[in-house]
């Protein structure tokens, strides 16, 4: 197992947002997190790279093992954690810099200085995110000139450039048009060969199309987990069944 959640509880002030969550995330698989708005799935992935630390008055208990090491201890270096666990957000958020500078931001931050190495890393990362052919002639143009779908793939490339092991995606296609969505979903399939992906999605179809494992969240609890096929064809819990058949959203 790549990641193991052991009895994780999470609080925003008095709001108990995750309730004794236990979950195993497998290596080189795509794990989809589904559930209605406010069910805790976005909170869940923000615990995996400790992004919640930027929000005041949060508290977390339990343990999250990444390669059998608890990432919630103070001894676990935050920069190191975020190098291993990359994150792509709901809304594309490229830096207001050139395409090239966006990709090298992470590697440079983590100490890579050699120009040739950076150049080849830019190409490698942009190829992996299926953006290279579209931008190879305008690497010095501002990232903000790209379309939404291209920006999102740039953000994926920016993550890949630091050579992470886990990729967190918080509704990565919800702000995109259907074509860009399709491109990014195709991309997931190649990415999972080298990375473990955790994807939060609102779209049942997307979860069914792209993921291997699915976890269903409701009111801060994981109601059911299993292979995507099982969850969608043969859910054990009535609430899971209600959700995937669209009885509540």
């Amino acid at each position, binding site marked *: 197992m790549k990641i193991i959640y052991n009895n994780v509880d999470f609080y925003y002030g008095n709001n108990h947002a995750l309730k004794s969550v236990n979950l195993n995330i497998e290596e080189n698989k795509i794990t989809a997190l589904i559930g209605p708005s406010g069910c805790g799935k976005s909170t869940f992935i923000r615990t995996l*790279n400790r992004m919640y630390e930027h929000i005041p008055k949060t508290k977390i208990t339990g343990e999250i093992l990444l390669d059998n090491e608890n990432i919630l201890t103070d001894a676990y270096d935050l920069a190191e954690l*975020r190098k291993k666990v990359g994150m792509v957000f709901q809304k594309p*958020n490229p*830096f207001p810099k050139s395409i090239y500078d966006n990709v090298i*931001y992470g590697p440079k*931050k983590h100490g890579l200085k050699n120009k040739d190495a950076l150049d080849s890393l830019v190409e490698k990362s942009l190829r992996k995110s299926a953006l290279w052919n579209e931008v190879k002639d305008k690497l010095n143009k501002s990232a*903000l000139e790209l379309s939404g779908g291209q920006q999102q793939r740039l953000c994926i490339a920016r993550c890949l450039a*630091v050579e992470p092991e886990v990729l967190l995606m918080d509704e990565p296609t919800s702000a995109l048009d259907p074509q860009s969505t399709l491109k990014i979903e195709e991309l997931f399939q190649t990415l999972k060969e080298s990375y473990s992906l955790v994807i939060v999605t609102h779209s049942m179809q997307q979860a069914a199309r792209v993921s291997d494992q699915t976890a269903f969240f409701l009111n801060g609890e994981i109601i059911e987990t299993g292979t995507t096929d099982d969850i969608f064809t043969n859910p054990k819990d009535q609430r899971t069944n209600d959700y995937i058949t669209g009885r509540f959203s």
Partner: protein
Amino acid sequence: MKKKIKKREFIIEKSLILFAGISIITTLAIIVTLFGETFQFFKEIPIMDFLTGKTWAPTLVPKSFGVLPLLVGTLMIALFSSIISLPLGLGSAIYLSEYAKKRTRKIIKPILELLAGIPSIVYGFFALTFITPLIRQILPQTQIFNVASASIAVGIMTLPMVASLIEDAMMAVPNSVRNGAYALGSTKMEVALKIIIPSTSSSIASAFVLAISRAIGETMIVAIAAGQSPVLTFNPLESIQTMTGFMVNMSLGEISQGTLEYKTVFAVGTMLFFMTLIMNLVAKGILYRNRERY
């Protein structure tokens, strides 16, 4: 009924145009007066003598109209006040937008804005009665009226403007961009230095230029604290006279309309007008050309 509404709309629109027009007409009137008298001045004094002369003595015998001492005085104030206002302004802006908690910001920002509301004459006396004695304790050779003290006061006065312009630009950077950097392992300082400052650089540059422009045009502080002696010096501990300081001084004395001394004030005023105009255009240009979009 319909006709009545139409007529009322017509009157409202025309009177609003008149209101807006008043400021334009005033500006034009000022420029015409300024240029008219300046033109008269340069009929008597060659423009090169004015721009390159090193002695400024318009009221003494022999008269001399070299503006360089005033210009250097003004630029020294601009330079030294920037040394105060730019780094402090940038630093305050970074603190307020990147580090301060919401509550702290809510307290500090109004205080900073209060600083901008203090009349400049108060700063002038503050410089003369507080900053100058302080400087003289450390550097006893400092003259009572000196560039350093006035510059510090001008710097403090322009600080809120710099801080507030930059902070507004920084706050306009969406949080999602910051989160993107945090998610790559950046610390707060790295986000501030490598993401926020570069992406607001045009606003920062424009704030700097505006601050310098304000310092050039600042009058009361320099008239009170920097002195009234038009000497060509580069020593900030000495007394000087700035362009604005000269104009105030002249208008306090008894000069009659039409005399050369009278026209001198306008010639200096025109020069000042062009300096601040150019600075303001540069600031606008920087912003316009590199406007940040997200």
